[in-house]
């Protein structure tokens, strides 16, 4: 046990088995981002997947919305220690978007309107683990929460779920993104508490 803080009681909560180590439950939906919220007009919005071989797969807003969607209900975990349970989203599974993508790449660099980037292994985007989400809790996704569309990868700390997502570059080598270059963990598994580089 670490240092004991005299007089600290704390507040034990239920649902502990769903809370990764070091996280606390919040009912709110806090916002964390590094710069101004980009405003992306829907008529100019697009999402791309660029393969390591230089092929570009492209969807505009209407095309994205015409794809079959799913409505995942997931727990999300922010590295700043809040977790929110049972969040309800609607979006397109990346399995759908990757259906016609031929690639042998192992890594993905996700990039956003506004310049944000984050990296993760490609396999963490596939097999029902990730979505391009455009609705939250029954409403169109608000700009401050990443609208018109954000990546949703709930099994990793939430900074990996890039807001204002614009595309994915597939790479043969791991390329650290924005927070990953600034001292945060390259992978970010909340259950292994991979918050910072070296954790």
């Amino acid at each position, binding site marked *: 046990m670490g240092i004991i*803080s005299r007089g600290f009681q704390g507040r034990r909560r239920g649902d502990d088995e769903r809370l990764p180590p070091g996280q606390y439950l919040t009912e709110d939906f806090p916002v964390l981002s590094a710069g101004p919220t980009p405003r992306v007009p829907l008529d100019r919005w697009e999402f791309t997947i660029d393969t390591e071989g230089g092929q570009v797969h492209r969807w505009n807003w209407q095309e994205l919305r015409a794809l079959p969607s799913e409505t995942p209900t997931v727990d999300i975990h922010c590295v700043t220690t809040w977790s929110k349970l049972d969040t309800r989203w609607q979006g397109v599974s990346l399995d759908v978007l990757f259906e016609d993508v031929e690639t042998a790449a192992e890594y993905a660099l996700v990039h956003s309107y506004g310049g944000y980037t984050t990296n993760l292994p490609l396999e963490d985007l596939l097999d029902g683990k990730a979505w391009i989400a455009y609705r939250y809790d029954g409403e169109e996704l608000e700009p*401050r929460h990443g609208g018109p569309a954000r990546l949703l990868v709930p099994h990793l700390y939430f900074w990996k779920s890039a807001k204002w997502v614009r595309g994915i570059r597939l790479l043969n080598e791991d390329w650290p993104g924005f927070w990953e270059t600034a001292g945060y963990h390259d992978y970010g598994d909340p259950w292994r508490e991979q918050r910072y580089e070296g954790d």
Partner: protein
Amino acid sequence: MARLTWRPARLVKVREETASARTLVFDVPGWPGHLPGQHVDVRLTADDGYTARRSYSLAGPDGVELTVQRVDDGEVSPYLTEVMRPGDELEVRGPVGGWFVWRPANPAPVLLVAGGAGVVPLMAMLRARRASRSATPFRLVYSVRSPEQLYYADELAAPDPGVDVSVVYTRTAPDGEARPAGRLTAADLGPSGEADCYVCGPTGFVEAAAGLLLELGHDPARVRTERFGPTGE
């Protein structure tokens, strides 16, 4: 990079900032130093081993100094603001965050925009400027509800050459204040030339202030934001 380790931190001094916020100064042997704008993770352990952890911005350029606002239904802030006494201990890990930072070697003029408790990391930048005897022009626009909510009131009122401080009162202005109470506007932030902008506060405030900065023509790439607290809206 070496793994960030938890270090014991002993409370040595307390300063009341407002009726519900106080500054805590800790002695942390081996603290590696930090840049203004960075934060620390704080871990509290109860005597049965239960732990709680939060992140707080560092308020000063040296050592571990935090200013904590009590959240009435919070788990950690009531302990830090009401229970903890000098001599008590907790653990810290950091510094964390390499983006929302000001480097004293950077000569670009700086515009700081604070909403409420968001002034804390910006105060660290102002204090670092003073400590490094920097001549970089700084401007702080600090939005608070009322004079009773103002942190660091005496320090901000003291003359600091090259630093321009304006306080924007949103609900209640003090007697003699020319600007009527009201939300932050573009006029409060202008006129402004090119500057590195740092905006910190609750989400709604940061959204609004960053939007005003873009309206005024600031380059989005030079507007850094830090948000905290529940959205509450």
